[in-house]
């Protein structure tokens, strides 16, 4: 893409991926993926299961080394700037009798990497209380985290990821196991904290509709290839047809979008 920034005052991107390719056990998972995330942006990483979303997030976290291409987070290579990235993995299983309260999980986000038992500190408690309030989790702050609902647990985990004040928050399918109502509550919450705290949010999902009203831009991933831009630019029949390598129709119904793959006609495109 030839998107050269026009304004010279544009802030440095919080994340810049250039030509990321990943091979895992002989299979190409990502192919030449490039995009940038500006500070405070809300970006949807959209793709079906197996499109490479989790692998891309692991590359950004420095947990997976790309086979080709380069990635910079706040100007540093992943792993060397670990503090600037908050992360919520796809499936977090919390046993119902886990001996941790919601506030303990949030506090571990503040200083979980430090050694020793935390000493009682009014400052620490205040930081945790503020963070819990910011995600509307004050009412269940002292409840056992394993007994909370899926949506409540997501709030607590988001607070855990945000309390160390990252500039970038990655979430892997945070809406996957939520009902429609909790799902839209979580998206609204993320859009709000992103705005209020200036955190860039990169959120993966297979359904883009819950995200449509909030996304600044979209990174659409299919078969390891990516297209990025605003949702109006990307979610178009011709763009997605090129990405999927087969005919794709985009239907817009009352502000919602349906992406429908056409019949798998053998139209002999070179692959």
């Amino acid at each position, binding site marked *: 893409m030839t998107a050269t920034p026009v304004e010279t005052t544009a802030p440095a991107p919080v994340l810049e991926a250039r030509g990321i390719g990943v091979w895992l056990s002989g299979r190409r998972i990502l192919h030449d993926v490039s995009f940038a995330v500006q500070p405070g942006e809300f970006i949807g990483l959209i793709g079906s299961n197996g499109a490479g979303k989790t692998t891309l997030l692991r590359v950004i*976290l420095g*947990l997976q080394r790309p086979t080709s291409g380069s990635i910079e987070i706040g100007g540093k290579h992943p*792993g060397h700037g*670990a503090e600037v*990235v*908050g*992360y*919520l*993995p796809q499936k*977090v299983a*919390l046993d*119902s*009798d*886990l*001996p*941790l*309260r919601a506030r*303990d*999980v949030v506090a*571990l986000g503040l*200083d*979980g*990497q*430090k*050694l*020793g*038992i*935390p000493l009682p500190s009014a400052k620490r408690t205040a930081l945790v209380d503020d963070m819990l309030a910011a995600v509307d989790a004050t009412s269940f702050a*002292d*409840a*056992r*985290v394993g*007994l909370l609902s899926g949506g409540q647990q997501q709030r607590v*985990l988001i607070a*855990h*990821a945000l309390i160390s004040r990252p500039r970038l928050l990655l979430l892997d399918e945070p809406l996957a196991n939520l009902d429609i109502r909790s799902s839209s509550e979580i998206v609204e919450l993320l859009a709000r904290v992103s705005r209020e705290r200036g955190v860039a949010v990169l959120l993966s999902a297979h359904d883009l509709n819950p995200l449509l009203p909030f996304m600044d831009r979209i990174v659409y991933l299919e078969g390891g290839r990516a297209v990025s831009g605003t949702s109006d630019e990307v979610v178009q029949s011709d763009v997605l047809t090129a990405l999927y390598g087969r005919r794709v129709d985009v239907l817009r119904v009352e502000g919602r979008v349906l992406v429908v793959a056409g019949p798998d006609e053998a139209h002999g495109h070179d692959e």
Partner: protein
Amino acid sequence: MFSDFMTNTWITASVVAIIAGGVGFFVVLRGSSFLAHALPHGAFAGAAGATLIGMDPILGMGIFAVGGALAVTTLGRRGRSDVVIALSLVVMLAFGALFLSLGSQYSSEVFALLFGQILGVSSAEVLPIVVLGALSAVAIITGYRPLLLSSVLPEMAAARGISTYAIDVYFALVVALATAMSVPVVGALLMFSLMVGPPAAARSFFADPLRAIPLSIGFALVTVWIAIAASYQSNLPVGFFVTLVSAVLYGIGRGWFALSSRRITVAA
């Protein structure tokens, strides 16, 4: 029961209980009960081997427990860790049996390694147990937060630069240390029950880890004290009572948790 002869017993048993209660909290948290079951058996084999060649049994136990801990965590990275632990367990048990059959002292010493000899702890045994216990305690207190984070949210911990493998190895070594110190007192079979029963019961009562851990230690202490007293009075093996009391505590804990969590659900 409180004579001079028994003083060492009360001291060492209490030290073992404190360590088992503290380390055990993380054993249950990490779902490492099987590891805590396997390592004492390795320690037993090490002790049997050491006795055979005339070495200090504690040293033999330490070597085998640490070796087992490293083997299990390293091999478990590739394959399924439960299979790796199971195979390590039976291999170590087999070596234990081999060393026993090669040796001449089949009787009471070996029985003690498996089932404990809490009613006859010599003064010379007290110091190593206290030292190893203090080491385990320091290791748990130092690693408290990374252990907690990596045990509950391993992927989020890894994203912060806390290596899951490093924590696995660190914790397996702590369990090995705690095992080596306690096997001669409570026995291989019973160290396991002490590291699982009281902590599993304690976590049912408190959601706050800094309350659940002291309660776990308290439960472990109560367990060994009752077991020693009962064993002294009845002349039955102390391990039987350790297991019985910790199982009863666990049952009470589960019952309490079922009741209290139902109350919360109804109230919500």
